[in-house]
């Protein structure tokens, strides 16, 4: 059901690099899983509303007042690279 090009398209959307061997394996496995899932396509669901959340939750907003939050040093402590008090990443431009 899913071919190599579709797997590569979805992987690109998910920002996931796949090896050649992984692309082939995923195409087969995802097709088998999606084939099983496809059974729900046959159900008559026109009058059934979707459920996104099972518990009735009222919007809980606190007063918009500044409070304590993580110290900058603590927030940066686990980062792979840091510069000038911020997270350091490579340039968005290739090369």
């Amino acid at each position, binding site marked *: 059901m899913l071919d190599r090009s579709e797997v590569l398209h979805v992987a690109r959307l998910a920002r996931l690099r796949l090896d050649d061997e992984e692309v082939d394996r995923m195409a087969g496995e995802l097709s088998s899983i999606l084939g099983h899932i496809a059974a729900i396509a046959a159900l008559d669901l026109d009058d059934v509303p979707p459920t996104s959340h099972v518990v009735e939750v009222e919007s809980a907003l606190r007063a918009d007042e500044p409070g304590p939050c993580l110290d900058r040093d603590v927030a940066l402590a686990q980062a792979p690279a840091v510069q000038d008090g911020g997270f350091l990443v490579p340039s968005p431009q*290739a090369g």
Partner: protein
Amino acid sequence: MDVQEIIGLTAAQAIAAIERGDLDAVELFSAYRRRAEEDELGAFTWVAEHLPADMHADGPLRGVPLAVKDLFCTAGIPSQSGSKILEGYLPPYTATSVARLEHAGATIVGKTNQDEFAMGSSNENSAFGPVLNPWDRTRVPGGSSGGSAAAVAAGLAPWALGTDTGGSIRQPAALCGIVGLKPTYGTVSRYGMIAFASSLDQAGPLTRDVTDAALLYRHMVGTDPNDATAVGHPEEIRLPTAERLDGLRLGVPTELTSGEGLEPGVLAAFEATLETARGLGATIEECSLHSAPHALSAYYVIAPAEASSNLARFDGVRYGLRREADDLVSMYTGTRHDGFGAEVKRRILIGTYALSSGYYDAYYGRAQRVRTLIAREFASVFERCDLVVTPTSPGVAFELGAKTADPLAMYLNDSFTVPMSLAGIPAISIPCGLSEDLPVGFQLAGPAFSENRILDAAHALERAIGFDGSPARTRTGATS
């Protein structure tokens, strides 16, 4: 008390012994710390090196050690969710549910192994190696809370915390011969749980008996300013005392108990337990959950869709693994290629596909409508029945490697646990007997917030069944 006597106690019995002055909390912690350190099952990913300085031994849980699934954030303690992408990650804060338990007097003795990001039913998807089932070390403990289940079953911890998204507490509890409770969605805060599928994830206890499950759960529930979906519990969670089931109506959904794939030995143990329930005064009637056969399909759309969104945060920027590259997108894609295991990649791809333009309505939209049907059908059944009962898992613990080559076969392990997850309702698994010398789990599910009813019924059944979980503990206790 000698070590064998100490590890023979349930958590509630250990608390009572401490209160009587027969047992010292430090002695108890040391005994379990040593056992966890000598773990040969792969159940732990981290073990405390010493007693924490801030042990709350005066709290109601009296300092009793607790094993915590790896995906709970614990400040300054590795919290890796079974993933290479979080190897060595030290969170800056502690999950609310863990903090509540520590405040009540629980002491973290170790973090337990799990399937990567809780995606799996055998614990074979952990980046830190598989967990072995203490009943038979050639078999899986179930998953994703496999380390927690194996640790409790083997007496390496008196009790443990797990999480359940589609069965990840109940199924490993069943396969390891212990008790596992998946609470009503929203009764326990999810703050600090490394997210898998946010509309389904729920923390709960894995314990040796039903009383311990009630005791641990009662100290976990509550609202939380850091989790707007945490609604707490309308009732105080009681320690169960019921010994009879008089007047209790148990519904047996035909769709879940007559299907193929259910092992004969599991069905036999399930039916024997129905007889036991009848003997205690319960009435058994057939009921119908028409859409239950479609629950697994809906689940394997909804959970991966939410996972693909939740796992977007693992990009090599703020924490965890980074694969260096010349440009930002190559850094993202390379980091995620190297950091995620095969099952996580599979689910990210399924979820991204199901949410992508042109497919959203056909997959995610329809799955959410199936979810509504399942919730409605449970509600309808609960007008006639007090609880729904099923086997927890279609089979007993399978051999390591038996299902790793076929993801779909692995997913079918969750057939009996996923419907309750989609409906957000509570369910417990208790050991009800053996098949092929391996434990079989009996699942009891009830309406939202019916934990007290479920715990009472499970307690009465547990007494009548008299399941002996000690062979597992004895076998692995030989080193003590």
